[in-house]
Structure formats: C-alpha cells, structure tokens
C-alpha cells in the first residue's frame, strides 16, 4: 500500500514539475510581456477539462554549450488533444518558458507525432506558436526536425484543417510551418513573423526597420497577406480559432458542420433592391449585400485587411457553411489586382478542399492596369483564380450584381469555368469592357470625323449601355441562368444549395495540376 502511495506521489510530483514549465521565474517573465503560458493558452482554447497531454516526459539528449543543464520534461512544447465545441482536435503549443520555445529535435518529434495522430484520426490540428526559432545548440538536429514538421504540414494540407496561432516571435525557419497551414492568426503587438530580423536586414541591406513594421500582425494582415486574421490579444485570437473551426469539417471526407437554421429561409430584404446604384460610377458596400443575404451575423471575413478590393469569408446559409468570394466596389471599384487574385484563389482552394460550397458576387471593372501590375505578374496571378475555380468541384454559384467586364467576368466564376448556376441582378452589366472604353475603340474613326464628337460619344455610349448594361442579352444566350430580384437572392441561393447538396464532379486522373503559383 505504502509502495503504491509512493509511486502515486512520485507521479504527482512529476506532473507538478511538468506544469511548472521553465519555472516560476520564466513564467513571470512571460506574463510581464502580456503573454500567457502554453498550458494557459490551451485551457482557454479547448473545451473545459477536455485536454489530454501526451509526451510530457520527453527530454532532449544534447550536451553542447551546456544545454544539458536546461533539460526539462516535455521540452519546449506541450502537445495533446482535446475538444473545441465538442469536436476533437489535436494541438501543440510552444512553451516560451523553456529555452524560449526553441525548436529542438524533441519538439520536432512531439509535434510530428501529434500531427500524425491528427492526420490518421481525421481531426484538425492547431499550433500555438511562440518560439525564438531553431535551437542553435542542437545544430542540424533542430534543422532536421523542422524539415520533418514541414513534411507533415504538406501531407496534412487539404486533408485536415491546420490553423496556426502566432502568439509570440516566429522567426527564421519557423515561419514556414504556419505558412504551410490553412489559416494564420496573429496577435497585435506581441507576435512577429520574419525570415531575417531587423539586425540582419540592417547589415545586409542597410535598411532600418522595427520589429512591428517588419513582421507585426498589422504588417502581415495588411501588406504581405501571410496572416488571415489580426487579433487584439491572445483571448481574441483563441476565440477566433474556435469560431473558425465552427465552419470547417474535421477532414476532407466530411461535410462542413451545419447548425440548426436560425434565420427565415424566405427572408427577402427589400433594401437589396436599391442597394446597387444604377450609375456605374457610384460605389456601394458589398459587405452590406452579404449581410442582407446570409444568415444573420454569420459572416466571418477572412483576410479582411489584405487586398480589401476583394472579399473572401465564411458564412452560413440556412445553417450550412458556405464560402463567399466577392469584389468590394467601395475599394478601387472592385478591380482585381495581384494581391486580390492571390487572396481569391487561395480561398477558393480552401473551400474546395473542405467541401464548402462557393458563392461568388461579381462586380468588377476588370484587372488593374499598370506597369507595376504587369511586371509583377498579374497574368500569372490572375490565372490562379481561373485555375482554382476550374479545379473546384464543390457547388459553385455566382451572382453578377453589377459590372462583369472582360477578364473579370471570365475569371469570376463564369458559366464556362463550370459554375453550376450563374444568376444576375437587373443591374448587371456583362460586356467585354465599360461603355466609354468600348465606344472609343469601336467608333474612333467616326468620332474623329463627326462635327460634335462629345454629343456623338454620349449617344453611342447610351446605345452601348442599352445593349450591355442589362443582363438580358447574356440571359438570352444562356450565359446567365436567370435574372433575379436582388431581394430574392437568399431563397434562390438556398434552393440552389438544396439541389447541389450532393453534387459530385470528377477531375481527370493526374498526379497533380501545375497551378500558376
């Protein structure tokens, strides 16, 4: 009896030691930076009492540079599994209190093991990143561990959802793991991501830059597009992770999780009938359109601050998760540029990978002209949108709300890249280009020769608009399946989703396509 008690006491003591991570001093230091410990973060993220830790006794075997003096059970990462809103997930959280959360051989083994478990169990994997980078004392062992992690990230890509939450530094090689995952969430002020730090940059290029400007949450959520979300603090970031998981299936063989409908499927907001100005030069907010159509308060915008001329996000329609792709006419008139193309293409592939139907709202005058765009490879980036839509086999529905000119019409889920249903509002304009541009090209000679070119141009523009500023010509030839009242959009989309609920479309057999990345 006493022997058993001793064994249990020993276990309890070890557990207590494990909970202490890098020790109380390191924990205090962590908290002084406004950050929580790895285990505290896991407790906030997962359903209460659901976390099951594994590999908490693993320790490293290295001795160089006296690293053996800092040997702690569990090493610099906490791994395990638990539940989020009742659904199983696997999780790993880097523990900054142990050697700065540095990526070691053991951390690599632990993370790879939990990722393998997640992949075999078909559950999402969430990484809470807070690490100084590779453990220099371990040399190539640390680098090898990175390689193994990236391999697992790539294997899991498109099979199970992967979410990276950056809650501290994430530098050097570490950044590639979040970059390989589906969603990256960063906290403002406390998280940073960069390949090379400010000191190295100063040495190499003589550029002086602070941490926040180089790789803060605002930088990556607005400029680089590396981060999909920028949260104000850790609590918000973890709440966002839970919210995001509500829209995603556990794996690519499951449908996304539906909830009982909370909104009237027949709700027809008459405000939609007047929301699009008839003057094509006047902007409107596409987010308002989305708000009127989808289940109330269900829209979660992804990449909200990056390329705001395009909108992507997740929402619910009659309780079902759907992916939304749209232009934002209120920003740059909804023109498609390099960043918008990247943003749209990436989101389409996420939706397709996880069986989330895609609903596209089109209002774009076309691709952004300019030397910078052409030299930046707008052709290649724009092609990504076509590729992603053409490859996607999930239900695809598009609604042309106003401008669908030229290339923008083609790439934005047009009929012939296999969109299942293409609808248009009465305000839709489907043409090769805008009226003014088309008249200048078509009637150049005539306008040069006539006595009053401005009056003639106005007449010709009006004539062109009469022909193409209404969707009926496109509908007459079957390029648009139906012209609908804007207010009817919600019930029409629900009815379409009902039809396409079990849609299956096969792709030709191939190893993989060559996406114009």
């Amino acid at each position: 009896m006493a022997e058993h008690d001793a064994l249990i006491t020993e276990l309890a003591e070890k557990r207590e030691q494990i909970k202490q991570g890098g020790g109380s001093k390191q924990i205090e230091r962590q908290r002084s930076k406004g950050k929580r410990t790895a285990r505290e973060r896991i407790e906030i993220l997962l359903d209460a009492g659901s976390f099951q830790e594994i590999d908490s006794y693993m320790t490293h075997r290295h001795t160089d540079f006296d690293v053996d003096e800092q040997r702690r059970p569990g090493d610099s990462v906490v791994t395990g599994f638990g539940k989020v809103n009742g659904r199983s997930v696997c999780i790993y959280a880097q523990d900054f209190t142990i050697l700065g959360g540095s990526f070691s051989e053991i951390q690599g083994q632990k993370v790879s093991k939990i990722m393998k478990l997640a992949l075999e169990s078909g559950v999402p994997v969430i990484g809470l990143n807070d690490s100084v980078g590779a453990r220099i004392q371990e040399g190539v062992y640390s680098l090898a561990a990175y390689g193994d992690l990236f391999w697992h990230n790539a294997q899991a890509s498109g099979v199970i959802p992967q979410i990276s939450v950056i809650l501290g530094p994430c530098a050097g090689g570490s950044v590639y793991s979040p970059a390989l995952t589906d969603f990256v969430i960063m906290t403002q002020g406390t998280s940073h991501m960069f390949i090379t730090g400010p000191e190295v940059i100063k040495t190499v290029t003589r550029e002086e830059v602070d941490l926040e400007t180089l790789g803060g949450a605002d930088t990556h959520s607005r400029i680089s597009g590396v981060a999909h979300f920028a949260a104000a603090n850790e609590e918000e970031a973890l709440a966002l992770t839970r919210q995001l998981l509500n829209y995603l299936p556990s794996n690519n063989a499951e449908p996304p999780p539906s909830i009982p409908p909370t909104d009237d499927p027949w709700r027809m907001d008459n405000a939609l009938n007047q929301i699009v100005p008839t003057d094509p030069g006047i902007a409107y907010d596409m987010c308002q359109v989305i708000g009127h159509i989808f289940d109330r308060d269900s829209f979660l915008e992804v990449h909200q601050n990056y390329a705001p001329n395009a909108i992507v996000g997740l929402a619910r329609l009659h309780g079902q998760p759907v992916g939304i792709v749209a232009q934002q006419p209120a920003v740059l008139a909804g023109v498609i540029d390099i960043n918008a193309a990247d943003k749209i293409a990436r989101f389409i592939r996420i939706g397709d990978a996880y069986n989330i139907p895609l609903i596209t709202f089109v209002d774009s005058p076309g691709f952004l002209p300019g030397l910078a765009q052409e030299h930046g490879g707008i052709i290649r980036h724009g092609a990504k949108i076509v590729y992603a839509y053409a490859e996607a086999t999930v239900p695809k529905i598009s609604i042309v709300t106003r401008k669908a000119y030229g290339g923008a019409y083609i790439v934005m889920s047009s009929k012939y890249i296999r969109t299942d249903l293409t609808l248009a509002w009465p305000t839709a304009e489907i043409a090769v280009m805008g009226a003014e541009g088309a008249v200048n090209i078509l009637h150049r000679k005539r306008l040069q020769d006539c006595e009053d070119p401005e009056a003639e141009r106005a007449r010709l523009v009006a004539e062109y608009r009469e022909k193409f500023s209404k969707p009926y010509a496109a509908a007459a030839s079957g390029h648009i399946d139906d012209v609908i009242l804007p207010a009817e959009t919600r019930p029409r989309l629900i009815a379409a989703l009902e039809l396409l609920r079990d849609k299956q479309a096969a792709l030709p057999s191939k190893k993989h396509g060559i996406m114009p990345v």
Partner: protein
Amino acid sequence: MPELIKQGLQISALGMGLTFAALGLLILAMFLLERLFRVRETVEPPEGEATPVADQGEIVAAIAAALHHFQENNGRSPNLGANLEQGRGAWWRANAARQSPTRTSHRRQT
C-alpha cells in the same frame, strides 16, 4: 476547244435562264394567291371604352401588388431548405468514398 466552251456557256445560260424563269413564276403565283385569299380583319375600337392613362397606371400597380403578395405569401414553399437540414445524402457519401484517385482524402489515408 473554243466550240466546246461556247456550247458549255450556252447550256449554262439556258439552264440558269430556265431556273430563274421558274422561280419568277413561283413568286408571281404566290403573290396572286396571297392577294386572292387574304383574310381581311378589321378591328374597330369599341366606342366609349378608351382606357384613361391613369387607369392603366392603377392596373400596373395592382398587378405589381398582386405579384408582391404572391411572392410574399402564396409562392413560398414551406419546406425550402429542408434537404439541407437533413445533411448530405447517399449520393454524396457514396461518391466521397470513391473520390478521384488523384485526391488525397482522409478516408484513403486510413
């Protein structure tokens, strides 16, 4: 050789002439028949029944209101979205099980 060409041209001219003459006769016959058997319809507007413009506007408004009423109430299927609430059907599940060989699926991995 020139004689042969001459004969060929003569035959061509004769053939074409006959064809056009026959077509001309057909057109003439159609014209005459149409004149002979034309249905004469005279629709006289009924006296005192001219609809004032204001009344037409009211009719349009009434039709719009009726359509709106129909859309708002009678045109609504009570079970819109019911299939979605039931979750994916057998068709999807069966096909999901035999996904394209190019695609890695969780099911195929396990």
